């Protein structure tokens, strides 16, 4: 039993199978080492848990509903449930992690918080918890993403955060992450880096997955109430770095009867040269401190990805997901920009819920999977689509 449980857990050096680790310059070592040594202890402390659970309940608004999507179920011939992370405070699952990490940062005595953001959801979630705790907040965001996610930039500013444009490379999430890491190198004592996804050096992938695991913990309880069993047949989530998927999969990883479906952004199509489907196009490599699958040239230069959705526009994937892909535990699918836009429109008009562009990718694959009538499908509705209205209006 124990052996089985450990199959998909991180080992003591931060590896999931072949992937993970902490490939960091010496300048980051003291901070990363401190996290490695303390994160489990702090997260396991009852007083920490009490604060964390309290904020999840009264500030974030958890548990989020598990909604039976009747019309969508009829359309696809299965029972489809939506895990409503879009109803979290700030509009996406990202805040589960930032609440956890800000409490951790407080414990570690850090005064200054930095973060990277793609779609801006993690930036908003970080700015929010910094405002809540009265801590300085600096968010790095690709210049290109600042343009395409203007509402979230405004929200971060309203919350008192400083938004710093990343102007290097592709000017998207990868480059914002580079800049945040460089900031951390330059500010090694007072600063905590709140990484927004299950990427980065160990312990970040495991730490973020644990903070997000509340998603699958609630799904299990809610499914018992609704179906009598905690186990769905499918859990579907979109994957950029992969934090909402990690959270939605977490408590099902060892239950092999549950099919875990991760949906990547195919951009203009997997073979188009304008894609972000890392498992299809990537090879093992090292980026942002961990070994994982990585989109790169034959010379090992990181490729600039493309997705219409800023949150999925990332050339890598968390090491847990690389392991799920390689081991076959996860089923990796993809949706193009066009398919995601269409799915966003469909779900808006079928269920009255406007999803984030990222989330729309997860809905898109409903058309590609053959379901049995008895199937119980949970889709992680990771975020709401307000921030994407400009893009949606152009598509209409």
């Amino acid at each position, binding site marked *: 039993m124990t052996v089985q449980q450990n199959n998909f857990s991180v080992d003591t*050096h931060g590896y999931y199978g072949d992937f993970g*680790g*902490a*490939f*960091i*310059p*010496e*300048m980051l*070592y*003291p901070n990363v080492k401190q996290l490695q040594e303390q994160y489990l202890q702090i997260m396991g402390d009852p007083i920490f848990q009490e604060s964390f659970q309290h904020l999840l309940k009264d500030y974030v608004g958890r548990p989020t509903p598990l909604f039976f999507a009747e019309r969508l179920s009829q359309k696809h011939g299965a029972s489809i449930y939506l895990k409503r992370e879009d109803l979290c405070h700030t509009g996406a699952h990202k805040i589960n992690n930032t609440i956890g990490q800000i409490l951790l940062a407080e414990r570690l005595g850090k005064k200054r918080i930095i973060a990277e953001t793609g779609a801006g959801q993690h930036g908003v979630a970080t700015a929010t918890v910094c405002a809540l705790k009265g801590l300085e907040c600096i968010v790095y965001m690709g210049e290109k993403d600042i343009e395409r996610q203007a509402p979230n930039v405004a929200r971060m500013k309203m919350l008192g955060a400083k938004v710093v444009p990343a102007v*290097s*490379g592709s000017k998207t999430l*990868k480059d914002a992450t*580079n800049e945040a*890491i*460089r900031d951390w*190198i*330059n*500010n*090694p*004592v007072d600063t905590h880096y709140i990484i927004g996804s299950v990427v980065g050096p160990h312990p970040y992938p495991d730490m973020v997955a644990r903070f997000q695991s509340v998603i699958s913990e609630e799904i299990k309880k809610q499914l018992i109430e609704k179906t009598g069993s905690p186990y769905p047949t499918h859990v579907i989530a979109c994957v950029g770095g992969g934090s909402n998927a990690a959270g939605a999969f977490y408590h099902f990883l060892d239950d092999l009867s549950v099919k875990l479906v991760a949906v990547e952004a195919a951009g203009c199509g997997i073979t188009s040269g304008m894609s972000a489907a890392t498992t299809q196009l990537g*090879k*093992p*490599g*090292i*980026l*942002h*401190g961990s070994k994982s699958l*990585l989109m*790169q040239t*034959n*010379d*090992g*230069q*990181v490729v600039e990805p493309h997705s219409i959705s800023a949150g999925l526009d990332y050339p890598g994937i968390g090491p847990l997901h690389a392991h799920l892909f390689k081991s076959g535990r996860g089923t990796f699918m993809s949706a193009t920009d066009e398919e995601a836009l269409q799915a966003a429109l469909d779900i808006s008009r079928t269920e009255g819920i406007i999803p984030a562009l990222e989330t729309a990718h997860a809905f898109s694959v409903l058309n590609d999977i053959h379901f049995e009538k008895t199937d119980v499908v949970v889709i992680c509705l990771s975020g709401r689509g307000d921030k994407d209205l400009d893009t949606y209006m152009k598509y209409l």
Partner: protein
Amino acid sequence: MNRIDLLFKQKKQSVLNVYCTAGYPQLNSMVEVLSSLQENGADIIEIGMPYSDPLADGPVIQQSNMVALENGMSIPVLFEQLKNIRSTIHLPIILMGYMNPILQFGLKNFCEAAAAVGVDGVILPDLPMFEFENEYQPLFNKHGLKFIFLVTPETEEERIRKIDGLCSGFLYAVSSSSTTGNNKVIADQSAYFKRLKEMQLNNPILVGFGIKDKGTFQSACQYSNGAIIGSAYIKALEGSTNIQLSTKEFLNNVLA
């Protein structure tokens, strides 16, 4: 004897290591850069292998990496350019870069090729001690390549000693917690450099990050065996129409 060891046997003070980016400013400018560094007083040459995501580097070296990649530089091209380098360059040569391009080239291939063209050592800032010890160390040793580690003002004494035990060639003491090309003042770190000196480590110590001119070079050399200049030299090459002359002027200013 490895050229780095030989150098430190003969010279224990004011050793000057200069960093350049392969393929910068032009794809084929490296041989000229190397020979002008040799002619004008550098003691060690550190060649940066450009990478799309150089995390430990500040804006100047990032930019030189981007230009070099656009020029078409890669590890295979670099080794091709270094093929006959030992007919003209006798200074120790170190390759500096990040893990990912090397993994794609193949670490074994990399070590073989580096040794074959006469490279003396490597600096890979994102290969930490645990991974080095666990997996990679024998390959570097087998090919006679020195593996140079970084320490910072935040590195604890016990860890410095462990790093010193694994490190060879010299220890790269990062002057302040920062990316390359910073403007933090070296003098502020004298306590840290003194501490390093008093530890009486096995390896010689070169100080790097933020060394840009005569003043910072001399200040760094007070407590160490020498220093490393990177961003400032890259800046001197930016827009240069005469590499020989720019290098000469730059090094004359540092060494005057």
